[in-house]
């Protein structure tokens, strides 16, 4: 840790020594140095987590005993949550098909199309209120659906 602190201070000092007119810092050593510091922190955290909370192993797979409750992986919980939440048929389309298609196909389709839908060239948060609002709504929706998926585990 002390070493990392020293490295950080060095990085700051070196940055300050750069002439003002230079807007970018060279990839090596400035950018790489910061990356190395972060990498050490991440690798350390991973080893710590792995030691404190080892990967689990439950009973051997048994197709005849369903464990309760069962959840999918946390990053699919929002899909699972939406499937549990959406129980309405729309015309001839059954609820289950909507429940699967919206968070998987439609959601990823929308994500892919983001840069082609949002043609506003500004990167200022204030000048792209609609995009920011939609982003916040989508983020909250995914979090709420994830929570819904946890509560309604099978």
């Amino acid at each position: 840790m002390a070493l990392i602190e020293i490295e950080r201070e060095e990085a700051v000092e070196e940055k300050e020594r750069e002439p003002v007119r230079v807007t970018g810092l060279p990839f090596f050593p400035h950018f790489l140095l910061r990356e190395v510091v972060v990498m050490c922190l991440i690798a350390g955290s991973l080893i710590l987590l792995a030691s404190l909370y080892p990967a689990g192993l439950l009973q051997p797979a048994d197709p005849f005993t369903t464990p309760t409750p069962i959840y999918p992986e946390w990053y699919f919980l929002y899909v699972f949550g939406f499937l549990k939440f959406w129980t309405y048929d729309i015309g001839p389309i059954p609820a289950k098909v909507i429940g699967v298609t919206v968070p998987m196909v439609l959601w990823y389709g929308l994500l892919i199309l983001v840069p082609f839908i949002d043609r506003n060239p500004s990167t200022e948060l204030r000048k792209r209120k609609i995009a920011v609002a939609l982003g916040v709504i989508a983020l909250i929706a995914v979090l709420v659906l994830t929570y819904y998926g946890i509560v309604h585990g099978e």
Partner: protein
Amino acid sequence: MREQREVIIMTLYEKIYKWLDDRFKLGELLPPIVKHPAPVNVVSNPLYCLGGTAFLCFLILVVTGMFLAFYYKPTPDEAYKSVQNIMTAVPLGSLIRSIHHWAANTMIAAVMLHMIRIYFMGAYKKPRELNWVVGIFLLLTVTTFGFSGYLLPWDQLALWATKIGTGIAGSIPIIGGYISLILVGGNDIGAETMTRFFAIHVLILPAAIITLLGLHFLMVRIQGISGRL
């Protein structure tokens, strides 16, 4: 005496450099990479670390995954026992598998947070549209990695989480049935599924992610990091 040794080391280093420079023109190749400027705010803002964090996790996953593949046996009869063996008997096996587990979850979280940063900073805008698309495919690849790795220990969680997952994928209209058939390899999750998930996890997805990462980094290299202030 010490000075003399240093001189010898320097000349050896210079000799190696010259040998390589004669053959690969290092003098022309390296400076643009080494001196390539990164915007100041990119160096100081920790939010710009998320992509690099995901990549570090990827490297850790490759190394620990190779180790696990040495001991893991992808059949329903042997899989659980081999994982148990890794966890109890193999030296450092438990640590390596646990690091693989945590690096996988951290990588998915980092990729998602990286995407959220790119969205709110508007870094996907012209000229970087295609790199956003590649990024979404990377997100898909990474989650599929996690999904396919979940089945491999062949414990209760593995089996039943995969049942939910393949069930959800199977309900997608038109293509769902095919996806489910390709993944499961039959009517029920069994030996066929296991072999397929193993092949997907250690052959197909690694090839996909290396290609996508190559494109992702190449585009960043050509276009530079979007330096929003």
